[in-house]
């Protein structure tokens, strides 16, 4: 009864966000982005694109986690494989919603098929993430009907892994090929995306699983305790790697004299960035380095929540860092830093994507037995 109350209460909260989001979406289509978003020609990519990057990298990350048992044979991770695949589907759908809302003319997507530009990284990114969704859906279906280890299922697992790496690479290229913006340009972003995607995947699977266990049985099932302790160890290592990456990046920005890098100094002094570093990376790293906290239920939930929030801020600051310094004109003593803070409507639409992801996941937990394991193991 209590569980039912919580379930319907949760659904009602999601429903409210979805309804408000739908109102915002209708307004976007009727009035245009300019009427609702804090955006202009010099900061054309908004919170919604940051949300897209956050969702698709989370999706990529949980798919990587699912690949551990399915591609690399680490059987101990099988109990979280089905849930991982389903979270990946939900996150990817949320990502697509965010992207569609970012587009000025989404109804012209037919040109994506009939007039493709194969030189465009966005085109390839769209192709790979589209394929990833198809592979994830089929893979999930096969798992759901109990087919985990057939040849076709293995093909799907390997195919999913290859496509997700391709998708992540092309997402990195979308930014990394922009020569005009030094803070985007280069291969750093692809490597950074790879590690942070894995980090967000680990955080998501821990958080979603543990909250589910808490709501249903009140604790982690005994047979899965060591599994989650091991995940927490890997999680700790990946936070540390991400932290080191972030320090490298900041150091380069601080040493650079060129005006194009002045944004990095600006970002370093901004509250969201400091929250990302201190609260989203250092605090969870500190917590996870204490064995007692790392092995505790609360410690895991707290650290994974902080990391997810930190990464969400990180996606946002990455996107803004490349845009807030105008790239024209270069020859001026009045180098300005542009100000961007999302409007309430941008938040509403982004939260709509989150609500859709949570709704899909919640319904999945309710009806699709996401904790299933292959029959042999069970």
């Amino acid at each position, binding site marked *: 009864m209590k569980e039912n109350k919580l379930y319907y209460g949760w659904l009602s909260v999601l429903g409210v966000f979805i309804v408000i989001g739908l109102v915002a979406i209708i307004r976007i289509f009727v009035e245009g982005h300019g009427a609702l978003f804090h955006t202009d020609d010099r900061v054309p990519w908004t919170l919604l694109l940051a949300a897209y990057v956050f969702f698709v990298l989370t999706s990529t990350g949980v798919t990587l986690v699912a690949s551990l048992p399915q591609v690399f044979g680490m059987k101990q991770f099988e109990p979280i494989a089905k849930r991982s695949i389903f979270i990946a589907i939900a996150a990817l759908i949320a990502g697509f919603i965010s992207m569609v809302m970012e587009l*000025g003319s989404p109804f012209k997507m037919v040109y994506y098929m009939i007039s493709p530009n194969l030189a465009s990284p966005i085109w390839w990114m769209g192709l790979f993430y589209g394929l990833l969704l198809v592979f994830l859906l089929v893979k999930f279906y096969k798992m759901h009907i109990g087919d985990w280890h057939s040849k076709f299922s293995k093909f799907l697992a390997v195919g999913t892994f290859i496509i997700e790496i391709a998708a992540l690479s092309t997402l990195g290229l979308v930014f990394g090929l922009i020569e005009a913006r030094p803070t985007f340009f280069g291969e750093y972003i692809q490597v950074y995306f790879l590690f942070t995607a894995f980090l967000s995947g680990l955080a998501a699977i821990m958080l979603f699983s543990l909250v589910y266990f808490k709501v249903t049985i009140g604790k982690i099932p005994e047979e899965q305790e060591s599994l989650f302790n091991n995940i927490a160890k890997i999680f700790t290592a990946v936070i540390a790697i991400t932290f080191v990456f972030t320090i490298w990046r900041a150091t380069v920005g601080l040493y650079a004299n060129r005006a194009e890098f002045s944004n990095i100094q600006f970002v370093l002094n901004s509250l969201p960035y400091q929250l990302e570093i201190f609260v989203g990376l250092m605090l969870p790293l500190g917590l996870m380095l204490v064995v007692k906290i790392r092995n505790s239920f609360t410690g895991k939930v707290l650290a994974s929540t902080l990391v997810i929030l930190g990464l969400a801020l990180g996606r946002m600051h990455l996107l803004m860092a490349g845009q807030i310094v105008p790239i024209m004109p270069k020859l001026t003593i009045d180098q300005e830093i542009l100000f961007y803070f999302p409007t309430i409507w941008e938040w509403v639409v982004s939260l709509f994507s989150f609500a859709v992801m949570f709704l899909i996941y919640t319904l999945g937990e309710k009806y699709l037995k996401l904790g299933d394991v292959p029959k042999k193991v069970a």
Partner: protein
Amino acid sequence: MENKKDKTEESKIKESSRRKFLKSGFAIGAGTVLAGGIISSVSKVQAETSGNKIKVLTTNGKVIEINKSILEEYKLKPCDHTAKNHAREGIPYRKFTMVVDIGKCNNARKCIEKCQEAHHLAPDQEWMKVYKMQESKEMAPYWFPKSCYHCDNAPCTDVCPVSATFKRSDGIVLVDSDQCIGCKYCMVACPYEARVFNWRKPDISDDVANQEYCPETSVPPKSGTVGKCDFCPDMIREKKLPHCVTACPNGAIYFGDIKEDVISNGDETVRFSEIMEAKSGYRYMEYFGTEPSTYYLPPVDRIFPFKDEKKTDS
């Protein structure tokens, strides 16, 4: 000795003929230099005097007389709405260029106003911008007009996922708003911030809104798509100069054809190569390797003292 004198006379006559040729050619209308304008204007002048013979200006600057029958005049077509590819192909045998003489710009902003009027842009949408440039406190400030550079290696066309923006054979980079999905990737990729998004529903009359869209006119503007300077190909097809060129009261903006080696600001017509050499023309942010089609003449020999109205008022 006499022979040498004859040659000098001959050379003077040739030079005079070339000047007369240019003068008479351009007298027919500012900017006839464009898109076959020379051939058509010459044919009009010469038809009165020499029957089947016609004088043409060669690309190396000589005026030669040839039989009219061997010339095939290029017919300029209006923007053909029925053939989508027409706007994508460009005007054959042309390579358009813009040259901005920075020393002549005093931020009159007439280029911006005329461009906005012609393309039905909102007041905050500037396809042509004028920046105040000053490299350091010790160096003199100057005004720097800038539109899309129509780069030969355009990053914007490379990144567009649906090929809505494209480079034509005549060097012009256009946007097909019918095809643009509004991802704004081209805006982020352009090193010159040349692109302008239609963030809102355009405030235009029904007549304009009901016009059939053509990438060569960029009219009507469409909400949720990217716009930018198009070098006014519709004007070029009418043998006219782009709006910004004719609107500039100081003649700071020249437009022409690199293949013909001729540019004009409407008042004077000059050789592109000669003015580049004489005034040390350059391209902005050349290091990106984008090969812009717009060139600048440095801000020397200014015709106005620098005056920043905003600062004077405050």
